[in-house]
């Protein structure tokens, strides 16, 4: 149900239903008939059982990475504050119970 991998289009066949897609140096013919949009070599698609299911949005991926990087910044800022020794967080919430180290 779930195993789908990002691959990059290297070539599109004349009938526009089949493309050659590359994943980390491995290439496969993939049916792209499920994607209505105009595809071009260089585009990235999600591949599942020999079909392209979705186009991968570089903008969304970059936006997501930006948000993920920011997660850390907040946490680092918090750690700095905690380092000043104010005691508990302003809203009284701690860091959540921690699992014992394995």
């Amino acid at each position, binding site marked *: 149900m779930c*195993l789908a991998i990002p691959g990059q289009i290297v070539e599109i066949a004349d009938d526009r239903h089949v493309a050659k897609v590359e994943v*980390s*140096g*491995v290439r496969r013919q993939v049916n792209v008939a499920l994607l209505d949009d105009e595809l071009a070599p260089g585009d990235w698609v999600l591949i599942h059982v020999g079909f392209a299911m979705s186009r991968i949005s570089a903008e969304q991926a970059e936006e997501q990475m930006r948000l993920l990087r920011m997660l850390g910044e907040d946490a680092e800022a918090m750690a700095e504050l905690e380092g000043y020794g104010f005691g508990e967080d302003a809203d009284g919430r701690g860091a959540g119970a921690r699992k014992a180290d*394995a």
Partner: protein
Amino acid sequence: MTSEPVTAPNPGRPPAEEADPRRRVRFRDPQIEMAHGAGGKASRRLVEGLFVPLFGGALLDPLGDVAHLEVDGARLALTADSFVVRPLVFPGGSIGELAVHGTVNDLAVGGAEPLALLVTFVLEAGTPGEVVEAEARALAAAAERAGVAVVGGDTKVVEHGKAEGMYVTTAGIGRLDPRLSLSPRSVRPGDRVLVSGPLGDHGITVLLARGDVDLESDLESDTRSVYPLVDRLAEAVGPAVRWMRDPTRGGAATALNELARDAGLGIVLAEEAVPVRPPVRGACELLGLDPLHIACEGQFLAVVAPEAADEALAALRAAPGGGEAALVGEVRESPRGTVLAAASYGGSRVVDMLVGDPLPRIC
């Protein structure tokens, strides 16, 4: 559809091996499956549960690929291996080369200098003469490069429809290297695990060459003799080498699980340190396979004492063909009999022995 449901038969008795990794296994399987040849648990049941008890326990404990014999003061090593690869020819090699390298490598990682081979062919009637000639040439060339003499053998022909072209078996003899003394029992917590190069090239190459999964790549089999690298390792840090194995069927995971079980210790791999070429990784991600379960035919794993680890790595890296060697893990006291792979962000997972052949998945 009938209205009365049937209940599936109650499960039978559990396999004896699960509770204690070191307990003797038993072979009670009603029929032979492909899994019995895959190098994982089923193979172990067949070999250790059926063959070992019948053929002579003492000589085979702990079970390695190579037998040691002392004959009038000469310390010899003996091994045999059979080759049933499909297709016969694949990028980077063919069955003829595998037949030489497989046995030469068993001798090398068994601590012996390979000297001579016996080769048996089982040929299928109808196989084109030029196919047989090509393999004979490939085998002869590989033997010459590896510095071993082919001193004899046998040939049989079976009817069309059997042997899929040809099966080859090689038996090899070597001289035990006095610089090396290998045993899982000499492995200690703190010892380091080395690999000679990237994992999985051979297995993925052959899988792709079969054409079932319709993937193309520039990958080639890694088939080669590892003796020159073993030789360098022995010269640099000989007494510090505890154990070696070539990760063929079942991959590095199976070889290391066998070590963990035989030594009664745990092994932790650093997931990111294990070298894997990008196309192997790509194929594994696409098919849902783990590179640690994929066969190599030209690499080996070694466990060395910690104080010798850096020198061992340097010696391999400086040798031709050893440039991608890496330190990939460490032996620990626990969890006993278990191999773990740890990610650098802190999580770790158990790496189990292979169950059956690696099957691509879609889920």
